[in-house]
């Protein structure tokens, strides 16, 4: 029991990683990516066919919820994990991205690649709009304001004509072909590879940020905002940055999601999604990229895998959350020990 709760796989992993030479690392990364890339075929290959999800299509599950949740969890991790801001309305940025894609593609005929930067831009703008007033507040007040923002975006989407009201927007086109990859219903695996590429981009981006100035500023803010301010960190600006970058990732995921499902409606962007993404982050190991990815994969995949007990599915999900948090409160793969300090105000 003590071993189970004390053991930090992430530190162990980092140790092994540090011991490898450059070529070994490269081979490891390439092989890992290749294995993940082959996942869409796991369901139809004998030894791994236990992964197959009953009723829902496994390859589609890999794209949404699994891939999308990983991406959003990584984005939320920048906000919650890196700079310690509790955001309960992350789904708002996802929705803004999705609606950008929905509106620009159906009304103006833009394709996904053209919408992508614009959708990310809208999500970032919304992040600034929300962040400027909200980030002046502390801790849990931020939680309720972000929660409210998430609801507002959904309700406005119900109330406006341009967003199709409660019906939403149908007929959103798939992304056009790139390098012979077809992103349509018949090729969910291509979509999965696209999502993986985007996840890798986000991981790369987050790692860059973490070791540079913004990462250090976020770390300082998370540990003690007052001290950080005293040491000359412009806390509002850096909090806003983490918020906006998180929003950008959510927006990108939204654009991609809309062009995958082809139909969006306000009921896809409910409060539950925000909570689920937050659960992914905390479950996997708040602040640690690999933990977040693991957490999101499990929490997104599990409810689909156990669909055969359909009635008790969510019940089991709730139990898993309670059990896991009690057994490993820092998540499956916690962040580095030196980063793990008690935050001010927490007891």
């Amino acid at each position, binding site marked *: 029991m003590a071993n189970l709760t004390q053991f930090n796989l992430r530190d162990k992993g980092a140790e092994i990683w540090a011991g490898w030479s450059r070529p070994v690392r490269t081979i490891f990364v390439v092989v890992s990516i290749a294995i993940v890339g082959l996942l869409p075929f796991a369901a139809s290959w004998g030894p791994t066919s236990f992964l197959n999800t009953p009723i*829902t299509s496994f390859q589609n599950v890999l794209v949404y919820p699994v891939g999308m949740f990983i991406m959003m969890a990584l984005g939320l991790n920048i906000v919650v994990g890196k700079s310690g801001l509790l955001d309960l309305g992350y789904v708002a940025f996802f929705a803004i991205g999705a609606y950008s894609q929905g509106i620009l593609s159906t009304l103006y005929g833009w394709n996904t690649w053209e919408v992508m930067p614009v959708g990310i831009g809208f999500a970032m703008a919304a992040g600034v709009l929300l962040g400027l007033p909200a980030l002046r507040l502390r801790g849990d007040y931020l939680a309720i304001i972000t929660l409210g923002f998430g609801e507002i975006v959904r309700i406005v989407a119900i109330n406006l004509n341009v967003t199709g009201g409660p*019906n*939403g927007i149908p007929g959103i086109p798939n992304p056009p072909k790139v390098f012979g990859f077809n992103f349509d219903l018949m090729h969910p695996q291509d979509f999965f590879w696209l999502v993986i590429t985007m996840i890798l981009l986000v991981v790369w981006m987050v790692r860059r940020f973490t070791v540079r100035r913004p990462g250090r500023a976020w770390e300082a803010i998370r540990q003690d905002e007052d001290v950080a301010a005293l040491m000359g960190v412009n806390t509002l600006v850096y909090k806003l940055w983490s918020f906006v970058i998180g929003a950008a990732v959510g927006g990108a995921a939204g654009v991609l999601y809309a062009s995958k499902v082809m139909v969006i*409606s306000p009921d896809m962007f409910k409060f539950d999604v925000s909570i689920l993404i937050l659960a992914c982050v905390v479950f996997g190991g708040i602040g640690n990229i690999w933990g977040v990815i693991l957490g999101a994969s499990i929490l997104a995949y599990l409810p689909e895998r156990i669909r055969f007990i359909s*009635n008790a599915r969510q019940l089991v999900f709730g139990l898993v959350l309670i059990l896991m948090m009690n057994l490993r409160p820092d998540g499956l793969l916690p962040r580095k020990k030196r980063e793990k300090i008690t935050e001010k105000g927490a007891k």
Partner: protein
Amino acid sequence: MNKKIVSGLAIAAAATLALGVVATSPAQAAAKTSVSLAFEGPLTGGDAQLGQDQIPGAIYAIALYNAKNPKVKVTLVKADSQCDGTVAANVAPGVAANKAIIGVIGTSCSGEARASFPAFKAAGLTMIAPSASAVSLTDPKAPDRGFPVFHRVVAHDGFQAPALARYAAKGVTSPKFYVIDDMTTYGGPLAKGTLATANKLGSVVGTDSVPKGTADYTSVASKVKASGANVVIYGGYTTDAAKLFKALRDGGYTGILASGDGTNTSDFPGLAGKAAEGVRLTAADVPFDKLLTAAQLADFTKITGIKVPGLYSTTAYNATNIFLDCITKGALTRSAIQLCVTNGSWTGAGGETIKFDRYGDIIGGAPVGGYLVKNGVIVYDSVA
């Protein structure tokens, strides 16, 4: 090296997959001794009652069919999409990938239907919906139309909404309407659809949209009272309709209360209590137990374990029978089923003729029934 293997495998696998979904050769079909139909609708979740009321109709039809010992047996696959577009968007590709399934009875909700279309269109899988009634699903100009896979054996809201307004105002001289909706995919358009007819019959003195799940309807009730309306039409589901109608009656409103098929569930009279008395309800459905003989009803109870068939059992039964008839005629592939459903003509449980137009609606429209709550029971009144 690694990359080459990966891409090679990927292409090979992608090719087999694509072929597997598209190819349905006649040689394979001839050997078939059993096929599957899928029921897609809410079986769990907040709207579970809708699907749970319908699926017995399908189970009953299939049991009758299999009891006749046909050459090709039919099994039913339950695909629970929870009346939720997000879920349906994942469930539909799963159903499409199951090659045994040659037809889909569903969906129950319009939102699910929209989210399922892309997958079923790609797979050429025919749908016959027992209750998805949004107008746009069969509108040739709507971007979310289900052509060519979507069909429905239910009158769409374009028929139901005017019928609801007409039925609500029946016998009322100079009706003043107050129209309220619950801001859902179902309630919003239904309420909106009543406005034109309401304006023709009398005047609309006010509208409001109250989100589903609101606790307190008293402010709406006082607004209605202040407006001097004598006919209130609600577009929404049972729970909220009960709350609204109670608040209206408690608030001293004495006029007519009316709502559509979302409220027409067996739970409604109990939930609304005294406020339910005299409420006018419509449904694009004729009660199944009215169409069955006593022996058939006993059979139904024996097979499904349900005493009184719920709302839309009839349409689910009709939808299933269309597929079964096509299977009897030898249509055992998805494409054959599609051809059969598009061109065939059937007689429904109530004796009406079912033939689909190009976009999937019954030619001539399905009947909309008017119901009244009397002494705590919903009784069929007349055609609305």
